[in-house]
């Protein structure tokens, strides 16, 4: 069980105490703290304990107050005296704030909220951008990708033959490791029970190049990239798997895993803790074990499926490495025109590649949190100014009693430090809680490499923000109170506040304008994201999700060695599924919609001139049941029939996009196509028999691409496929049906993945959802902060004018007129804030355009709604004090005078 947050904070603070104190007292101190916490609890107690621990460490570290007062027999040095003075100031400030609890609580809450939100976002940013990758010298690691302008490839996986040539020929690379761009699943028969494991295929030098030492046993050797005729596969297991299944046995190397495929895998070593690159779920790594003959085979240069990570030779820059890489790429284009004619390559720091997809989201979130922090600071500045207005008298009294200006500033600084410190502690706690909550919603950090954690950077960040706020808390009132003359403020007029300068009022108005503007900006960001999400949800992805369940499974080699066995198993499974009560339709597909594009290629149609090529088409294997289960409409022609099979003519379906893009004005049905850039006599021709509706392949945002659907029995085949079933009732309820069917057919085949098509649809928008949630929370906080700011200033202005209002009412003004008076006074400020916010929104929301869908960053309707929301909130904030003012009893007021 984890210790409560307060105890963890106290323990963390204690780690900074001097060694002798820690060794002797830390354990006991925590035990005592725990006993007290169990008895008392409560936020106030928690805050005091944390603050007490901080003060204790300060005292121990900087010497601080001795046990004796400075006038005692013990001599104190000057520095000790000053420190003692500082600590006394802090104590005084704490007590002073306790006397103004409303102010203290509001200031700490607002700042704490700002710091908390910033800390949460920072810990996420930290995980993506700053936390070290679990690899040696990771800033020397670069990812190399392939490009192909004809296919629109920008950061594509590489063909292994190309990557191996780079490794040999680019001198700037001291070595190149390869890993598979996707994970595989395999079934381990653990004491006879099937257990699904996730495996990442890698090159033999993978661990060496990344600089990852084994926790036990050994890592792979470079030559293990290639099959050496060994009877057993070799695997390195993850630290988690080592702990879970082998209880951390140091002699695990040499144990074997019986796989359901009939293969035995020998465990050669264990990866270190915290390393599961490139996937969080990686249970084990295995070397590819390619046939050495593949090195010269065409497919080895045509199939793109490896991610190369190169280690730069010491002293060589990225630019120099890239120049060398381009030379080699040019050489390969000439040497292998068939596969490499238009193939380019590029490189980027590994970390940049790993965060590429989320960079815009991170930047927008960072920007939003910056705005929120500024808004919180402005809000606190408003509070401090309001309070310093009320404190003129106190300060004047101090002056009158002989305190110098610096003494007053010192007092203010101590107060600022106390507020900033408590706010930082609160913010740190809220931030950690926040990032944990968000982490549950979606994965944060680099897959398999980093995760958010309360590290030194996060604590330093929160502390830094706290200090910054402390400075704000000090400087604003210091500037304001610097010139308070002792006599004037003590006079009766001063006490009532009539002599307060216009300067303070102007500053307050400027702050409120800024608050409204910032609030508008953040609310605008939130509303734009809400609109985007609505639009995305309304996108017709081209398939029906209701009532459809998809399961993935692999037909094992051991009992189904040949292709014919696999096809027979698939036919039996589909027939059994459809025969089951409750299931209306069942089908099979290689890859689910929104799950990625499958493989891409080019084609020529029979009779086309050699220069006409259909570029950038994607492929998917699917049977008739797939289209029917997902309600993907047949536009023209026919679907696959029972008469189509392994031995009959090869037929394919295409989607509407394919027809429009590659056969504009022609009828694709009846055309023959071959997946070759230049078709020859040897080409395999497939006849197009039907056109089906488009569905999104990769994401909801990306429009459907031109796609060809192949008959599962007529194309390359795979043991791993998705099976979809549609029936009455909830999709998830069909899981039991599928399991029952499978256990009758072959109980040793496990379901690898089970997802409803609704989940598939939702998962495709996970990043959008995260940004939406964060921006909505920020927008809401911003609205609250802006409203509070407007309220505070209006209320104070109304209070100051109470006397004037009383007189006005005594001479005949009615409540309505008073109401108008108070509202009009604030209206200018609010309108100015809204206009300023709109101007800023027009400039700044552009940064979001990469995240938006179906709505422009400067969408007038959105901005109008946001302006109206801000105006409405401000009106409510002003109405409360205005109504109070209108109810002033003039008689009572004047009698009190």
């Amino acid at each position: 069980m984890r210790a409560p947050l307060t105890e963890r904070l106290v323990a963390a603070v204690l780690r900074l105490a001097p060694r002798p104190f820690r060794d002797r007292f830390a354990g006991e101190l925590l035990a005592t703290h725990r006993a007290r916490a169990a008895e008392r609890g409560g936020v106030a107690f928690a805050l005091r304990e944390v603050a007490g621990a901080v003060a204790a460490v300060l005292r121990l570290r900087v010497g601080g107050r001795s046990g004796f007062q400075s006038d005692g027999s013990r001599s104190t040095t000057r520095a000790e005296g000053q420190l003692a003075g500082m600590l006394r100031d802090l104590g005084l400030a704490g007590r002073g704030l306790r006397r103004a609890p409303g102010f203290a609580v509001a200031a700490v809450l607002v700042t704490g909220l700002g710091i908390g939100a910033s800390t949460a976002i920072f810990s996420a940013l930290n995980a993506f951008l700053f936390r070290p990758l679990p690899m040696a010298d990771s800033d020397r690691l670069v990812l190399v990708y392939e490009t192909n302008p004809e296919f629109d490839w920008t950061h594509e996986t590489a063909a292994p033959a190309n990557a191996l040539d780079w490794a040999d020929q680019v001198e700037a690379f001291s070595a190149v490791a390869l890993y598979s761009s996707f994970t595989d699943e395999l079934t381990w028969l653990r004491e006879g029970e099937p257990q699904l494991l996730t495996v990442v295929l890698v090159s033999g030098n993978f661990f060496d190049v990344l600089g990852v030492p084994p926790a036990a046993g050994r890592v792979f050797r470079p030559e293990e990239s290639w099959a050496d005729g060994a009877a057993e596969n070799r695997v390195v297991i993850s630290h988690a798997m080592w702990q879970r299944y082998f209880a951390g046995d140091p002699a695990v190397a040499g144990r074997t895993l019986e796989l359901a495929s009939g293969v035995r895998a020998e465990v050669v070593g264990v990866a270190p803790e915290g390393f599961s690159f490139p996937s969080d779920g990686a249970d084990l790594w295995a070397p590819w074990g390619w046939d050495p003959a593949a090195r010269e085979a065409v497919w080895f240069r045509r199939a793109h499926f490896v991610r190369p990570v190169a280690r730069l030779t010491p002293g060589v820059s990225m630019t120099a490495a890239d120049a060398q890489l381009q030379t080699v790429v040019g050489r390969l284009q000439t040497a292998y025109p068939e596969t490499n004619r238009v193939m380019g390559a590029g490189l980027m720091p590994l970390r940049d590649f790993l965060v590429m997809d989320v960079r815009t989201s991170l930047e927008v979130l960072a920007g939003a949190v910056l705005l929120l922090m500024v808004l919180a600071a402005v809000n606190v500045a408003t509070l401090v100014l309001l309070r310093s207005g009320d404190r003129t008298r106190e300060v004047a009294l101090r002056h009158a009693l002989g305190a110098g200006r610096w003494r007053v500033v010192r007092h203010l600084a101590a107060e600022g430090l106390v507020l900033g410190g408590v706010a930082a502690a609160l913010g740190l706690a809220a931030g950690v809680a926040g990032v944990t909550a968000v982490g549950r919603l979606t994965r944060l950090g680099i897959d398999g490499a980093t995760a958010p954690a309360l590290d030194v950077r996060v604590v330093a960040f929160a502390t830094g923000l706290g200090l910054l706020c402390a400075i704000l808390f000090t400087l604003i009132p210091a500037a304001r109170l610097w010139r308070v003359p002792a006599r004037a403020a003590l006079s009766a007029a001063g006490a009532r506040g009539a002599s307060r300068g216009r300067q303070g009022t102007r500053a307050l108005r400027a702050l409120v304008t800024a608050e409204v503007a910032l609030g508008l900006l953040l609310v605008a960001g939130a509303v734009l994201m809400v609109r985007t999400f609505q639009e995305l949800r309304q996108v017709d992805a081209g398939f029906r999700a209701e009532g459809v369940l998809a399961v993935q499974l692999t037909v094992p080699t051991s009992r189904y060695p040949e292709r014919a066995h696999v096809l027979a198993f698939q036919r039996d499974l589909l027939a059994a599924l459809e025969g089951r009560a409750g299931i209306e339709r069942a089908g099979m597909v290689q890859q689910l919609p929104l799950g990625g594009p499958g493989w891409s290629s080019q084609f020529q149609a029979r009779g086309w001139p050699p220069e006409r090529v259909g570029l950038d088409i994607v492929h998917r294997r699917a049977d008739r049941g797939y289209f029917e289960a997902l309600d993907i409409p047949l536009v023209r022609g026919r679907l696959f029939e029972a008469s189509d099979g392994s031995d009959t003519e090869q037929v394919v379906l295409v989607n509407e996009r394919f027809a429009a893009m590659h056969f504009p004005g022609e009828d694709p049905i009846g055309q023959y196509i071959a997946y070759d850039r230049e078709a020859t006599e040897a080409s395999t021709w497939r006849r197009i028999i039907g056109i089906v509706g488009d569905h999104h392949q990769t994401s909801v945002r990306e429009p459907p691409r031109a796609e060809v659907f192949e008959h599962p029995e007529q194309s390359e085949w795979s043991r791993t496929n998705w099976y979809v079933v549609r029936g009455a009732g909830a999709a998830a309820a069909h899981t039991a049906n599928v399991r029952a069917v499978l256990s009758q057919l072959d109980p040793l085949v496990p379901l690898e993945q089970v997802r409803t098509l609704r989940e598939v649809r939702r998962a495709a928008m996970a990043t959008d959802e995260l940004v939406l949630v964060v921006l909505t929370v920020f927008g809401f906080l911003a609205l609250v902060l802006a409203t509070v700011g407007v309220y505070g200033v209006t209320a104070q202005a109304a209070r100051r004018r109470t006397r004037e209002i009383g007189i006005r009412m005594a001479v005949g003004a009615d409540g309505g007129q008073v109401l108008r008076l108070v509202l009009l006074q604030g209206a200018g400020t609010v309108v100015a804030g809204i206009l300023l916010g709109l101007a800023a929104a027009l400039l700044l929301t552009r940064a979001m355009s990469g995240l938006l869908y179906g709505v422009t960053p400067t969408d007038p309707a959105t901005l109008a709604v946001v302006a109206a929301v801000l105006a409405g909130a401000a009106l409510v904030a002003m109405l409360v004090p205005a109504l109070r003012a209108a109810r002033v009893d003039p008689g009572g007021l004047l009698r009190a005078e």
Partner: protein
Amino acid sequence: MAVTPLTYHILMALADADRHGYGIIKEIGLRLGQDEEPSTGALYVALQRMDGEGLITDTDPPAGEAGEADPRRRYYRLTPAGREAARAESSRLAALLAAARAKDLISATGER
């Protein structure tokens, strides 16, 4: 020689029994009320200092409390010097109170 209020309260808490840190805090709480109890951090800083000054020393748990206690807990006891310091501070305070009474600030029983 004058001691800080916290030092004095710790000396007082240990005057009639050996106590562990938590016990000292509870004893102080009895006299001052929960809201005026020192933070745990402040207590141990004071304990370390007082130990260094020879006012207190740590000791084994008293018989009967040994078994149930958290093994991390230690008990503290007044040294003769500590007892002397507590006496001296008490007399100093008593003298101050006498002066306050003489000036009619409080009654003999401490009432205002």
